[in-house]
C-alpha cells in the first residue's frame, strides 16, 4: 500500500450506502428489491469474512479474487470507503505483498457490519421487515 492509498483511506468517512442508488434500485426492482437487498446485506457480513479468511490462510490470490468481487458490490451500492479498501486489498493480493493488510481487513469488517445495519434500516423503512439478522 502506498502513501497515497493510505491517506485516501484515512481521510474518508466511514462508508454509508448511497441512498439515492438504493432508491433507484427500489424503483427498478419493485417487489424483488427486498429479496435482492437480503443478498447484499448478507454479503456485507460474509464477503469481508472471506477476505479475512484468505489473509489468514496466506493466500494472496484468493485475497485478490475476494477483494475484486467485493469491490463490485460496494461500487453498486455507492460504498466508496469500502470500495477503496477492497481495491487496495485486491491490489495487495495481486502483488503478493500482504504487509499492512490486517488493519484494513478489520476496518472492512467493521464497515461491512455498519453497511449491513444501514441496509437493514433502509429496508425496514420501506415498510416491510427484513428477514436477514
Amino acid at each position, binding site marked *: 500500500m502506498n502513501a497515497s492509498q493510505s491517506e485516501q483511506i484515512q481521510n474518508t468517512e466511514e462508508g454509508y450506502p448511497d441512498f439515492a*442508488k438504493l432508491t*433507484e*434500485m427500489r*424503483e*427498478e*426492482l*419493485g*417487489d*424483488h*428489491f427486498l*429479496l*435482492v437487498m437480503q*443478498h*447484499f446485506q448478507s*454479503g456485507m457480513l460474509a464477503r469481508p469474512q472471506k477476505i479475512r479468511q484468505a489473509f489468514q490462510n496466506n493466500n494472496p490470490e484468493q485475497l*485478490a*479474487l475476494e477483494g*475484486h*468481487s467485493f*469491490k*463490485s*458490490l460496494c*461500487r*453498486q451500492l*455507492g460504498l466508496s470507503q469500502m470500495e477503496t479498501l477492497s481495491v487496495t486489498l485486491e491490489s495487495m493480493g*495481486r502483488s503478493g505483498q500482504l504487509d499492512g493488510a490486517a488493519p484494513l481487513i478489520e476496518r472492512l469488517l467493521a464497515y461491512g457490519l455498519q453497511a449491513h445495519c444501514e441496509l437493514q434500516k433502509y429496508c425496514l423503512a420501506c415498510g416491510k421487515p427484513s428477514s436477514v439478522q
Partner: protein
Amino acid sequence: MAHILVVDDDEIMRALLSGMLRHVGHTVVESDNGQGGLEQMNAYPAELVITDIFMPEMDGLEFLITLLEKHPDSKVIAISGGYKAVNACLSLQMAKALGATDIIAKPFHTAAVIRQVAYALQSKTIAYRRRAER
C-alpha cells in the same frame, strides 16, 4: 418478454440482475460460470445472454467466443468492473470486438440496464449483420 440467461460467478450480482429483469417481466435462468451457461444454452437457448467478463475457470470472453461458435445468432451483453491490469473499458471493448451485442460497465444504473436489454433484444445479431454485408 424474453427468456434471458444471466452468467455471473457472484451470486449477489446475479440476484440483482435477475431481480431487475424479472420485475419487468422477463424469464430468467442463471449460471455461476461459463461452462454452465453453455449447457443452459444447449438445453434451452435464451434470447439474450448477460455475462460477466471476469470469472474463474471459463471467463466471460472465452464463454462469449464459444457461445458464438455454437450459437452464432445469440445476443450477448457483457458486463465488467475490470480486474488485474485489464480495466473495465478495455475488457468490454474486447467483448464488443468478439461479437457482444452490447456492453455494460459496473457499477451500473438499473434503469439503464433495462433500456439496454430492451434495445439488445430488438437489435440484429452480429451474425445477421455479417450475413447481410455479404
